[in-house]
């Protein structure tokens, strides 16, 4: 755990674009973007997975479109254009989820529509896809999307197992476990994310101390 990781020197640039989203520039833990869904829908693992997949889908599709059209969109209206592209894909994701699983749609509620205003997606469109080619943009979007999904699934695992004593609906601890109700309530979301960030800070500091 405490061994400092060295980057492979031969790793290609494209692969780097993908990997950076997973840890070094993780949208949730490092950039602290897209916090609303991170806190709101992570009360069960299932919700986290659906949210993560939907967000990755929107991120990927809008990255492709933004990257393809990056030379034609006038600078002044780019943000509005990006938002429209994102809103289109979110509407699609909304209807797809409704068609596949009505239960998932109901438990996520308005938060599927709210993917539109996930600052991570607009942030990637503005900071990356609008300046890079399609291939790099796809890798970047995949990395960020998977990094985001991993982060919210981590939160979901902690909150569901402690707050409800289950994981994906299966009981974990037997009958005598008393659920920590606070974990599924709003306050618990803040606490779990706060302590995860604390842990990551501590880990990074230890690595930095060892590197010097």
């Amino acid at each position, binding site marked *: 755990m405490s061994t400092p990781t060295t980057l492979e020197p031969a790793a290609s640039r494209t692969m780097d674009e993908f990997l950076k989203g997973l840890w070094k520039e993780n949208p949730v833990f490092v950039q602290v973007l897209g916090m609303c869904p991170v806190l709101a829908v992570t009360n069960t693992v299932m919700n986290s997975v659906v949210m993560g997949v939907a967000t990755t889908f929107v991120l990927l599709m809008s990255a492709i479109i933004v990257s393809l059209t990056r030379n034609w969109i006038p600078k002044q209206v780019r943000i509005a254009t990006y938002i429209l592209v994102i809103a289109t894909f979110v509407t699609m994701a*909304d209807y797809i989820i409704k068609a596949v699983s009505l239960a998932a749609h109901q438990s996520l509620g308005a938060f599927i529509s709210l993917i*539109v205003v996930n600052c991570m997606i607009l942030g990637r469109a503005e900071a990356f896809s609008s300046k890079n080619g399609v291939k790099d943009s796809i890798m970047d979007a995949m990395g960020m999307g998977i990094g985001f999904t991993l982060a919210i699934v981590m939160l979901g695992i902690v909150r569901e197992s402690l707050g409800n004593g289950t994981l994906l609906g299966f009981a974990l601890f037997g009958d005598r476990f008393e659920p920590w109700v606070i974990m599924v309530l709003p306050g618990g979301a*803040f*606490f779990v994310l706060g302590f995860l960030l604390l842990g990551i800070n501590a880990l990074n500091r230890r690595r930095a101390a060892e590197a010097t």
Partner: protein
Amino acid sequence: MHTESLGAIFVNALLINNFVLSAFLGICPFLGVSSKFETASRMGMAVTFVMFVSSLCAYGVNALLLWINAPYLQLISYIVIIASAVQLVEMFIKKFSPALFRALGIFLPLITTNCAILGLALFQTAKGYNLIESIVYALGAGGGFALAIILMAGIREELELTTVPDVIKGTAIVLIVAGILSMTFMGFAGLV
């Protein structure tokens, strides 16, 4: 469909289902702009104003969309309305208070991607509020956002003066404080 009084709608949006602390809407500005009391209170006012304008427009547009029978355009048209409302507020503030304009900086255009505002428009449609109820709901939600961000800014200014372990500085401590605030707000449950 719903039998809440106007007062109940207001208190509900302001305290019980506070947008920031119990519905997790508008977390980005809540974490980002809450380090100074001054900026936080201005941000609160700006958001309340945008909420008011976009709630009015969303009500009108929703009626129009139902009339032309195109509910799938809801999300797209709401976001356009909000973006325009933010643009309007931005021009307004730039003209009348350049100092405030500089203080809000990047966070002003980012109100567009403040989920609290889109959330408000979506919730008021989902709950089937009429025009008056929508306005009251918007004012309550905006007030609730301002309240939460101002409380947070007050606490963070105090935090500056205390000794916090290095490792917990930054977002981690803010999130834990927000968790405690959120638990406090749970005490308002059952008020109405």
